[in-house]
């Protein structure tokens, strides 16, 4: 199996499709024009998902494809480029889901000789899928059933003498928890339940190895750019991530009244300081790590004591498992973070669903007397039960939307999700560009595919009173994310680019040999966002899905610096209409045939 002669630099020009029901595999050529139109990562993944999906399969059905996809930059010396995307229909949203992770899995996966690995079917028993240039092998991993992610990774490394890099699922993925993750080396393709899709295929692990390299079209220029980008990555634009990590947001958001607290009932948490990295760093041993091939080093790990491995702490973990559940006990929150990592659970959806259950219990809608805001013991116990689908954990494993359907009593009004995906830690009434981004997001409430909060944290808009004239900021930041996530680079580099599209076009051109400029990347971004929308429409999307839960549209924000912030249904509808028209779609959000092919 050789690289396609006609493939541009950075590509193999083909993907591998494996049916784990039969073990059969097929190498399929990707036309060069498609590579240029969708680049890689979430862009090419969206195109592949649409191509490989027949009809409207259940997300957990054998014929629903699970796609691991790389990018032309993987394997290059460009900092932060060791990333892969996982793309599938989400069991949480039944819409497109694309999640990214950074690790050596990306480099090893691309060395298999393929730009993407498409998996369908269901193995007869819990298995590992091994892919290399030598072929495809399905091996029994029945003895790993129920193992936590670090243990599974350790045993696989030992069994295969480090020849393969393994992406694995934990007990949550095996149990089809709808927000289970896929993990490698402490990093997670976290959102939307891709671990459950892998579990539904009876795959505990995907192992990759290889020696197939892709040439760079202009290697000297790539090296020069790489050195320049690495140098800039040490500067002020990434300082926050190096010094405090993403958790630095906690006290800032709290002061601004944008820190979601007690299931989005308030925008301020009185005990936030107990969880802040500024406090944790004084109280605990701390270490710092980097992703593979990254010069930023944003990972901050804090000790839990008693010989336990240190815990990686991010803002989203802290917000979801702390203030959102009203919990300020840092030992418990760190323990909850660790358990999510080990079971393979998305921390945002786990915290969001537990917080929702706490409010339902406090209102007397469900008989769970331990579910009270602030109960650290309940938080930790709930995660264990979700990860194993035991007792009430079996309900919570379905996510807040399905849980609200089950509970009734009008609880859907305060189940904080969009399209089924729980909201990340940005209070939408006080950050209204982000609110729009959440509402229209193809994968649901999401701060990574829509970077609209960047506009809220600027002097471009009034974050508490967004108007239709501001909607272009949501489109702009979503387009930027589409390109960054397709190249794939770390978003924390955003601040180092003076001309984002221009500099990224130069990077892509030197790797591939294409004469690509900023204007082309702008059109590519629009095409990628539209491709994701087309997939959702093919799976039954309707305009009524593009909204926010009732709480955000009928209740003003309480507490803190943003108290009184509100966003009503009519204004949101106008913003969404302007967004759709700004995208070149019709006012309801349907894609017209003439758009961006």
């Amino acid at each position, binding site marked *: 199996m050789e690289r396609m002669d006609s493939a541009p630099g950075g590509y193999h020009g083909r993907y591998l499709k494996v049916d784990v029901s039969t073990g059969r595999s097929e190498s399929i050529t990707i036309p060069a024009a498609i590579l240029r139109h969708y680049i890689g990562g979430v862009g090419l993944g969206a195109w592949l998902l649409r191509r490989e999906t027949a009809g409207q399969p259940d997300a957990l059905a054998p014929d629903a494809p699970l796609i691991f996809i790389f990018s032309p930059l993987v394997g290059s010396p460009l900092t932060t480029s060791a990333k892969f995307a996982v793309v599938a229909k989400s069991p949480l949203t039944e819409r497109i889901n694309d999640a990214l992770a950074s690790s050596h899995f990306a480099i090893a996966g691309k060395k298999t000789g393929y730009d993407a690995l498409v998996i369908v079917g269901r193995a007869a028993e819990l298995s590992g899928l091994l892919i290399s240039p030598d072929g495809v092998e399905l091996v029994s991993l029945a003895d790993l059933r129920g193992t936590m992610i670090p243990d599974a990774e350790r045993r696989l490394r030992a069994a295969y003498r480090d020849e393969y890099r393994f992406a694995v699922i934990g007990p949550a993925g095996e149990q089809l928890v709808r927000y289970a993750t896929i993990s490698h080396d402490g990093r997670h393709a976290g959102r939307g339940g891709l671990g459950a899709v892998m579990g539904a295929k009876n795959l505990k692990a995907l192992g990759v190895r290889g020696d197939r390299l892709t040439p760079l079209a202009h290697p000297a220029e790539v090296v020069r750019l790489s050195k320049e980008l690495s140098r800039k990555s040490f500067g002020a634009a990434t300082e926050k991530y190096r010094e405090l990590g993403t958790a630095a947001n906690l006290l800032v958001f709290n002061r601004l009244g944008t820190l979601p607290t007690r299931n989005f009932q308030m925008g301020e948490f009185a005990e936030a300081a107990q969880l802040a990295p500024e406090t944790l760093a004084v109280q605990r041993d701390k270490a710092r790590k980097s992703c593979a091939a990254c010069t930023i080093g944003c990972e901050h790990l804090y000790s839990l004591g008693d010989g336990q491995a240190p815990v990686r702490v*991010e803002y989203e973990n802290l917000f979801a498992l702390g203030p959102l559940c009203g919990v300020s006990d840092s030992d418990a929150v760190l323990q909850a973070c660790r358990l999510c990592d080990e079971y393979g659970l998305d921390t945002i959806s786990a915290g969001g669903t537990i917080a929702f259950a706490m409010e339902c219990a406090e209102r007397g809608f469900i008989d769970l007397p331990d579910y009270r805001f602030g109960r650290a013991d309940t938080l930790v116990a709930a995660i264990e039960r979700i990860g194993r689908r035991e007792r009430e954990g079996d309900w919570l494993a379905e996510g807040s939307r399905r849980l609200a359907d089950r509970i009734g009593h009008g609880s859907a009004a305060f189940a904080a999700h969009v399209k089924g995906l729980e909201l990340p830690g940005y209070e939408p009434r006080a950050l209204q560009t982000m609110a729009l981004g959440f509402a229209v997001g193809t994968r649901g409430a999401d701060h990574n595919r829509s970077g609209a909060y960047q506009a*809220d944290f600027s002097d471009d808009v009034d974050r508490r009173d967004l108007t239709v004239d501001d909607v272009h900021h949501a489109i702009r930041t979503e387009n930027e994310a589409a390109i960054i996530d397709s190249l794939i680079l770390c978003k924390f580099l955003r601040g180092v680019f003076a001309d984002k599209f221009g500099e990224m076009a130069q990077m892509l051109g030197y790797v591939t040999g294409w004469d690509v400029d900023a204007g082309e990347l702008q059109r590519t971004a629009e095409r990628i966002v539209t491709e994701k929308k087309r997939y959702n429409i093919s799976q039954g999307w309707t305009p009524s899905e593009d909204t926010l839960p009732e709480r955000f549209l009928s209740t003003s924000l309480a507490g803190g610096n943003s108290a009184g912030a509100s966003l009503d249904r009519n204004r949101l509808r106008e913003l969404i209409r302007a967004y759709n028209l700004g995208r070149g779609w019709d006012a309801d959000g349907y894609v017209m045939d003439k758009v961006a092919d």
Partner: protein
Amino acid sequence: MTVTVELLGMVRRRAGRSRFEVDAVTLDALLGALARECPELDGYCLDSAGLKPGFLLSLNGERFTRGGTALLSDGDQILLLSADAGG
């Protein structure tokens, strides 16, 4: 006018303090006073043109700004923070 400047995130870490009280009539004047009061911030988030790109002010928690000639009142609170909210 005596106003309070509260520093958040990396700005607080750089300054080694969480708040200042300064006399200033406008936000632009406040930035000048801040550079004199806290030399650690001069060159970091402040330069001769005012607030450097990537940093923001908020007057009493209202809309973000980068300075200007809006008149301040006694007791106003101004937040100073970096604009990188990604997480």
